[in-house]
């Protein structure tokens, strides 16, 4: 649906929005502070990953993880990437939680094959889905690319491989490539978007990019505002301001 084919009702609706009066602040009126915050993040040079020593993943897994999350959420003109926001650190730390060890999943057998609409039916908890998946993925790459592991491939090859995993086209011996990919992507997004206290989303970089006020949790004064973008930058659980 494209905007130039506006229906009369659409035009009416747009007109009925009260626009900000001209004058102070009008220039930034529609997107105000948020646009600026987003722009700042965008203009920033690629951040350095902070030195972090993984304690869950081994060296090969860590290389895989860093390469993969960099493809899933790259640094680009739209904002910070997964690497500079510390997503690998988040995932490494997250793997040691009871959640990643399957504490809230039903983990008893027998394990039967079932159509995808019945959900994950494997016996590995999240931390092992990622580990076993990385190993299978690396072995697969080594076979296909003359001994090269995933992290050794060029970016285009990496992207192509991830796409194949997403589309369930990679057949691994120990785990479904699609399930591995889905969990890897979910963890990457969690690390990118969750509160910085969990190890990722450094400096609330992703929140600034999308204009999310984070943990403010108090908007009664803004429910009925229609003519201005929400102006207050994010705050995190520790009370830091973005």
């Amino acid at each position, binding site marked *: *649906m494209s*905007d130039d084919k*506006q229906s009369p*009702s*659409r035009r009416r*609706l*747009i007109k009925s*929005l009260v626009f900000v009066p001209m004058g102070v602040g009008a220039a930034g009126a529609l*997107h105000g502070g948020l646009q600026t915050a*987003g722009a700042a993040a965008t203009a920033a040079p690629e951040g350095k990953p902070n030195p972090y020593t993984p304690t869950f993943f081994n060296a090969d897994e860590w290389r895989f993880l860093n390469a993969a999350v960099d493809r899933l*959420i*790259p640094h*680009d003109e*739209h904002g910070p990437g997964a690497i500079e926001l510390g997503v690998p650190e988040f995932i490494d730390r997250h793997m040691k*939680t009871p*959640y990643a060890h*399957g*504490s*809230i*999943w*039903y*983990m*008893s057998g027998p394990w*039967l094959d*079932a*159509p995808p*609409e*019945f*959900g*994950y*039916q494997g016996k590995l908890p999240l931390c092992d889905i990622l580990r076993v998946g990385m190993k299978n993925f690396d072995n697969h790459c080594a076979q296909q690319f003359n001994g090269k592991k995933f992290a050794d491939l060029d970016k285009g090859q990496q*992207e192509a491989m*991830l796409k194949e995993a997403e589309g369930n086209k990679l057949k691994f011996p120990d785990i479904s490539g699609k399930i591995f990919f889905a969990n890897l*992507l979910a963890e*990457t*997004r*969690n690390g*990118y*978007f*969750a509160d910085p*206290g*969990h190890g990722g989303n450094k400096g609330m970089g992703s*929140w600034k*990019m*999308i*204009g*999310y*006020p984070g*943990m403010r*949790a*108090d*908007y*009664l004064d*803004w*429910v*009925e505002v229609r*003519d201005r973008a*929400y102006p207050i930058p994010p705050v995190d*659980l520790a*009370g830091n301001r973005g």
Partner: protein
Amino acid sequence: MAIVKTKVDAVIVGAGWTGAILAKELTDHGLNVVCLERGPDRDTQPDFAYPRVVDELEGSVHRRYLQALAQETVTIRHGVNDTAVPYRQMGSFKPGTGVGGAGSHWSGAHFRPLPEDFLLRSNMEQRFGKKLLPENMSIQDFPITYDELEPSLDHFEYVCGTSGKAGVINGQVQEGGNPFEGSRKREYPLPPNPNYLGSEWFYKAAKEMGYHAYPIPASNASRAYINPYGCQMGPCNACGFCSDYGCLNYSKASPNANVWPVVRGRKNFEMRTHAQVLKVNLADDKKTATGVTYLDAQGRETEQPADLVLLCAFSLYNVHLMLVSGIGTPYDPVTKTGTIGKNYSYQNLNRVVMYFDETVQANPFIGIGGAGATFDDLNGKQNDPTKSGFVGGGIVWARQPGAGPVRGIPTPPGVPNWGSAWKKSVKEVFRHQFYYEVQGSCMSYDDAYLSLDPTYKDAFGRPLLRMTFDWHDNEIKASQFLVGKAQEMCKVLNPLAMKGDAKKDGQHYDVTQYQSTHTCGGAIMGKDPKTSALNKYLQSWDVSNVFAPGANAFPQNNGYNPTGLVGGLAYWCAKAIREQYLSNPGPLVQA
């Protein structure tokens, strides 16, 4: 049995909405009551205190307030000849645990059923003849009427500080409310909440389509309020962490904030948490219960003798407890005999997301749990099955309980799930989108039921509850019809893009997609012990000192969220116990 506790008048299994209501009503009456709750104790302070409570990773990924499936879950299959597999990770529905139950992390949409919902089968047969209903559709009338239940529904709304606009008071239609609703005796305790953009636009679109939009009744307080028990509520601050989260603000009605505070200190009441009830103990003749067996906080098997056993463990677990305890006869889908497990039903939910340009400040991170706008022009009597092609009905609504990026940012059609193009899209759309949902009724069928799984066990060695459920043609047609109307409505708003479809012909129930925790039926109320598990007072036909209030009692699901009716039925059940049962224990309705 190592430990046997002193006998009490009543033992309540579960500390959610129904448990809290029964505890309040029966301790008011002087009974000695013990409540056994499998989860931890929880209260607004400190468990739901800011900022800890609004952690999206903890709340929506680790599901801190929800039941851990590791202990207990269900198995699911589509058809009676299939092998069921466990519900290993939470998706489609999210039962609660801990004091407050799902009543602490619900959203607050608080509907009453329509008068015609109570007499669905009779209404359909009278209006359209017996041939209209498919043979396998096992819908039944409720054994009570709207008018009988009205005082209980009203009382529950006043306990919850429900914010809304009455549509019909004493038969008079009120401007701004739902003209199709059953007549009520008085206004809602509080006026509606403010409209966020999506609901404001909903009114415009509904008007253009000729629908009668009204504010969703929401138990998210729009003003400061003190309920009839003296519990205080503060105005909802639109925090955006409602569904899945406890309220940081004493604004969302919950057992924790609105009922338990007055019951907890009573001398004739005791709350025992980390108390997992394993079964109801029956006398040899299986006609009376002697109490329950549970595992205490130290894992010791403990017996709690009681004169009355009140199953308040949520619809699914009420049925599970009845099945593992041998209360009544399990339903058999082949012979269509037996009643425990019969008529399991669900809710037919579909969503349409609309994307706008950056001038449209939809701010989905702002949220007020149950608040928004809806209409009943396609629900209840307004739906003519001979024209629409389906029995039942549904509502379309604009609701915004609050969204954050960990909970997921929907992207327009064609956008990939990762990479630069995805990033560009989430950045562009995050604050400029909202959704309308269709929440439809779900009929009950001979082949949709609950039973015990032959293979899988819970952490306590009991067979898991097995759910046999799939969508039937009627619900798929309903989804197509109602989503079609919702899409027409969305088009009136002319978004840049739209995403969201109706269920496709032959589509199976997908347990990985959240659809709602409105699981219903399985131990239904009715007039005849041959076709229902409970009588009109929620009393077991088979074991007369067992009552099982909860959505398990619905013979089928209507187009609304269940809790208004669940709370109303709990008060109705408590009244029958107080006024009829205690002076003359035994069956309240002669079979």
